[in-house]
């Protein structure tokens, strides 16, 4: 009897002492832009499990993950940089790093977090452990002139590539020595609005707003400089109005092709990644904002700028055309695929919901209440170049 009791006691102790272990591969977070909070979610359970407040202005906020998938770095519009522990569901550290920020990135080795800023224009590097400032690169493209920085992406070699909206250049900063970054500059074109690095880390692309085309830099041979592709896709002499800047990221590369938003036009441009020649145009129902491939590359999902921001078009990459048109909700701002793509999560800002769809059947499989949801970020980004 005594033996049994002490055995039970040990069991009880164990239950109290050992926290429940779990991994991070199926976790993520949802930005609630208006209220400065994030909801933490489990993509296996398809449920929220915690909510964290006090992150400041989260309009246009973005997130990168430490490679352990446990820590998320949230870049707020007001310049706030917040490190969140997804397992403990709490803020670990928070700093105000600038006046007006637009996103960030994390280095290949996971040790440096870099923020890209509009005001003052430039990038700043922080120790991923402590968020202590390591160094900064002001985007001073001409004496006394500073540019807004867009399209920041981590690239191999502990480097970061980014574009200067006002300066019209692509810059590559090498943080091998995090306290003394070395920067190379490449002329790119008029008003780059965002950038992406291909999933293999080789090419950096900057979409141009001020002229037709996309600037392309081969990071394996940067000495050749940036060249222009898609130069004549036809936004035209009389520029078409653009109601929301499209977003670029490595998610647009699928099956050897890049699917890029045509700025101002109701089209997705298809480019062969081997030759960088245009190989097709897919008509869609609005000005594309996010053009995102499912992880297997069979589908590309497209959402749109106002006034078409309640619609979604799904392209089948084998057929090369839209195979599904959806109106899932009001103000579809963002989408994120489950790590292997069986589900997609959509934020319907004006419905205050995140909607979860099966990507094969297009049947809704769940929803989560959220206050003005915008970005959705899963930890599967942690191990991808350019995320």
């Amino acid at each position, binding site marked *: 009897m005594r033996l049994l009791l002490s055995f039970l006691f040990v069991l009880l102790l164990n239950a109290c002492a050992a926290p429940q272990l779990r991994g991070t591969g199926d976790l993520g977070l949802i930005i609630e832009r*208006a209220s400065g909070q994030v909801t933490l979610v489990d993509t296996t359970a398809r449920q929220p499990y915690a909510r964290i407040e006090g992150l400041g202005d989260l*309009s246009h906020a973005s997130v990168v993950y430490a490679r352990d998938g446990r820590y998320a770095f949230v870049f707020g519009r007001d310049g706030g940089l917040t490190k969140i522990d997804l397992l403990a569901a709490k803020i670990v550290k928070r700093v105000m790093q600038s006046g007006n920020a637009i996103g960030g990135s994390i280095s290949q080795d996971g040790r440096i977090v870099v923020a890209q800023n*509009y005001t003052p224009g430039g990038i700043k590097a922080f120790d991923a452990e402590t968020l202590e400032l390591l160094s900064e690169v002001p985007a001073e493209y001409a004496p006394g002139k500073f540019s807004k920085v867009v399209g920041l992406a981590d690239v191999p070699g502990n480097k970061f590539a980014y574009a200067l909206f006002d300066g019209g250049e692509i810059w590559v900063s090498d943080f091998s020595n995090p306290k003394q970054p070395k920067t190379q500059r490449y002329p790119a074109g008029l*008003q780059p609005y965002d950038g992406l690095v291909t999933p293999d880390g080789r090419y950096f692309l900057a979409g141009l*707003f001020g002229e037709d085309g996309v600037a392309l830099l081969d990071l394996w041979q940067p000495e050749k400089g940036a060249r222009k592709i898609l130069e004549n896709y036809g936004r035209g002499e009389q520029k078409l*109005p*653009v109601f929301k800047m499209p977003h670029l990221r490595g998610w647009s590369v699928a099956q050897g092709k890049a699917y890029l938003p045509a700025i101002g036009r109701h089209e997705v441009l298809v480019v062969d990644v081997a030759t960088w020649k245009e190989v097709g145009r897919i008509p869609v129902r609005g000005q594309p904002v996010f053009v995102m491939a499912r992880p297997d590359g069979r589908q590309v999902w497209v959402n749109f700028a106002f006034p078409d921001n309640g619609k979604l078009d799904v392209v089948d990459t084998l057929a090369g055309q839209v195979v599904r048109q959806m109106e899932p909700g009001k103000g579809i701002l963002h989408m994120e695929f489950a790590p292997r793509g069986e589900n997609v999560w959509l934020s319907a800002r004006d419905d205050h919901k995140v909607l979860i769809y099966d990507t094969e059947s297009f049947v809704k499989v769940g929803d989560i209440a959220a206050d003005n949801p915008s970005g959705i970020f899963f930890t599967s980004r942690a191990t991808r170049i350019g995320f």
Partner: protein
Amino acid sequence: MTLQGGLGPALLPANLRDKPAAGLAATIVYGRPGTPMPPWQQFMSEAEASWIVEQLMTEFPK
């Protein structure tokens, strides 16, 4: 919506105070070529644009 600006300038009352209201309304209606500001005339009348300017110059309802 904090109106603090991003690619474009901030739209807080303090930033707009010295600008003529008619010019601001024209910017909304016709856009500003060479910048990301698009024309909104297909979605609103000049009177509606003037109303927006009026709200911005005082304080936009949250």
